[in-house]
């Protein structure tokens, strides 16, 4: 097996809040292989966005602190890297696209200027060469009339077009790793489908590894090779996408899959569909986490042991952190 492109080793991130210091990520370990797509899935507040920011070396400080573990990119620990080195890595080796493409683009410059700026920052090319690259990139991400659109301002483009511009900017320096934090949440379904197709094409063409942060199990199925399920700052289940979707072992994963209304022709034409599976309650606030399993309060299988002792991530077919893994009604 090849060496991982990026690996998190027992990563710990803490945040200062008005409730004191809380642990946002407690001991996250995962590998991203070259050219694969890794999904990170969970509800809001589970720590998936912090994980993405940590991979970029962008944990906001203050109030955030990386207090333990390593973030290895091609063997180099970026938690120890100098700011200058980090800036070189960002954009050139690791790039990121965000949920809201409108706020990630500067409204007072044309999109062409912004992409050219990113190219000039990292590559030793002339302004004219950079501008030619911009047009090529916009064509690559499927923007019609790229030469004309390069002169457009962000507000003149639709949401889908803006996300394409963000992707063009992200791949401008041929990064090895692309982190996509809920890239299609703000978009319509037909546009989401276009963006997903574009991301797959980009991956095939450039061999870039993608980390896809999402709350949508459908996106996981369609886009990813492997999945890590996060809950309250920990990975609670990890495996190939088929393992997770077909044979989920953690009650939380089962809930996440069972609570989605199944779509379309697959559902048949039942007169009335059965009620959805529910996960009662909400993700507990980080400052109220106890010693036991963080999911126990919402879990139908939880007993006193669960509430007292936190289950470790153990190999039970695939890694899962649950004392009752695989028990109960499968999703």
């Amino acid at each position, binding site marked *: 097996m090849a060496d991982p492109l990026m690996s998190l080793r027992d990563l710990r991130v803490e945040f200062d*809040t008005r409730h004191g210091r809380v642990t946002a990520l407690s001991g996250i370990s995962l590998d991203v292989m070259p050219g694969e797509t890794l999904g990170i899935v969970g509800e809001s507040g589970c720590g998936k966005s912090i994980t993405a920011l940590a991979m970029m070396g962008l944990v906001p400080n203050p109030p955030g602190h990386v207090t333990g573990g390593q973030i290895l990119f091609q063997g180099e620990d970026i938690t120890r890297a100098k700011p200058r080195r980090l800036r070189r890595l960002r954009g050139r080796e690791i790039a990121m696209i965000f949920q809201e493409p409108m706020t990630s683009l500067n409204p007072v410059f044309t999109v062409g200027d912004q992409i050219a700026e990113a190219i000039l920052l990292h590559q030793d090319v002339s302004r004219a060469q950079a501008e030619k690259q911009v047009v090529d990139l916009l064509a690559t991400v499927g923007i019609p009339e790229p030469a004309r659109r390069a002169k457009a301002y962000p507000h003149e483009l639709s949401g889908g077009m803006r996300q394409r511009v963000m992707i063009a900017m992200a791949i401008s320096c041929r990064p090895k790793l692309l982190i996509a934090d809920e890239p299609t949440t703000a978009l319509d379904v037909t546009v989401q489908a276009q963006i997903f197709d574009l991301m797959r094409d980009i991956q095939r063409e450039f061999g870039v590894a993608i980390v896809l942060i999402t709350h949508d199990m459908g996106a996981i199925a369609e886009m990813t090779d492997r999945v890590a399920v996060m809950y309250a700052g920990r990975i609670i289940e990890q495996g190939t996408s088929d393992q997770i979707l077909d044979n989920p072992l953690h009650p939380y994963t089962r809930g996440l899959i069972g609570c989605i209304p199944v779509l379309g022709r697959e559902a048949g034409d039942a007169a009335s569909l059965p009620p959805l599976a529910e996960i009662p309650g909400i993700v507990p606030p980080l400052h109220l986490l106890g010693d036991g399993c963080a999911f126990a309060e919402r879990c139908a299988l939880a007993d006193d042991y669960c509430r007292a002792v936190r289950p470790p991530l153990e190999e039970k077919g695939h890694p899962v952190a649950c004392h009752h893994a695989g028990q109960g009604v499968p999703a």
Partner: protein
Amino acid sequence: MAAPDPIVPQTGSKQPGAAPPPATPGRSNEASSPMREAWGQFLKNRPAVFGLALLAVIVGLVLYGHFIFDADPYDIVWMPLTPPGEEEGIWLGTDFLGRDMFTGLMKGGAPTLAVGLSAALITVVIGITMGSLAGFFGGWLDDLLMRLTEFFQVLPALLFAMVLVTLFSPSLWTIAFAIGIVSWPQTARLTRAEFLRIRELEYVTAARSIGAGNGRIIWRVILPNALPPLIVSATLTIGVAILFEAGLSFLGLGDPNTMSWGLMIGQNRNYLLDAWWPVTLPGLAIFLTVFAVSLVGDGLNDAFNPKLRSR
């Protein structure tokens, strides 16, 4: 992002008839209104609390001081322009007529504060009325009211106030009215902006959907939510109005029959080169009052700003 929400536990879904689960122990279930939270935040702000305490002392002395030091501020008690501390019982010296400065400061504060408060009240009443009507109804009414607001905004404030005071008798009420007339456009614009913002929020549509009329929506729904910046602005207007009154009095346009801090400065300014105290002391009183009001206003501003609250 990672900052957890201050949320009470969700009860989860239940079948009909199921008993509600008991409250999870250890989590607050106490009601806390946005206003009460802002007050708690205000109390954590040391300069603001200092300002409030200073203001309380000033107001207390001005309103109740004469119960302790009962004297007539117009009485000539000693030689004119006696420096502070030279004569026993005349701690702060005398003015150009030989009147006691200390008594003057005590008695002169009430009219000064009254002008400030009345002017702020006039400002708020006119400003909120104009702003809320313009912002809520929009259209031609908005156009009309905003042109009117602009007209008053471009009036040279001091000049206009001077004309008003000259035309009518220079009483405290004329002065307060003159200040109010030239300061309301700012409040009106602020109110209108808040109404325009809040008008689009779903809870306003929600109120309409349950049959609330325009009056109820303006007064009960939008205005309470628009108040925080208006309170801050009204507080700061008090300070501005006090300075304005002092300015008018200094120019000799104050009410000559009512002892006020501004009047004291205005009457004594010709003797400034011979005696610093008859001008400086009321100036200091005005400065401290405006300073205290500003601290309170800034504190309110921070307390109402939710972005600062989580720190």
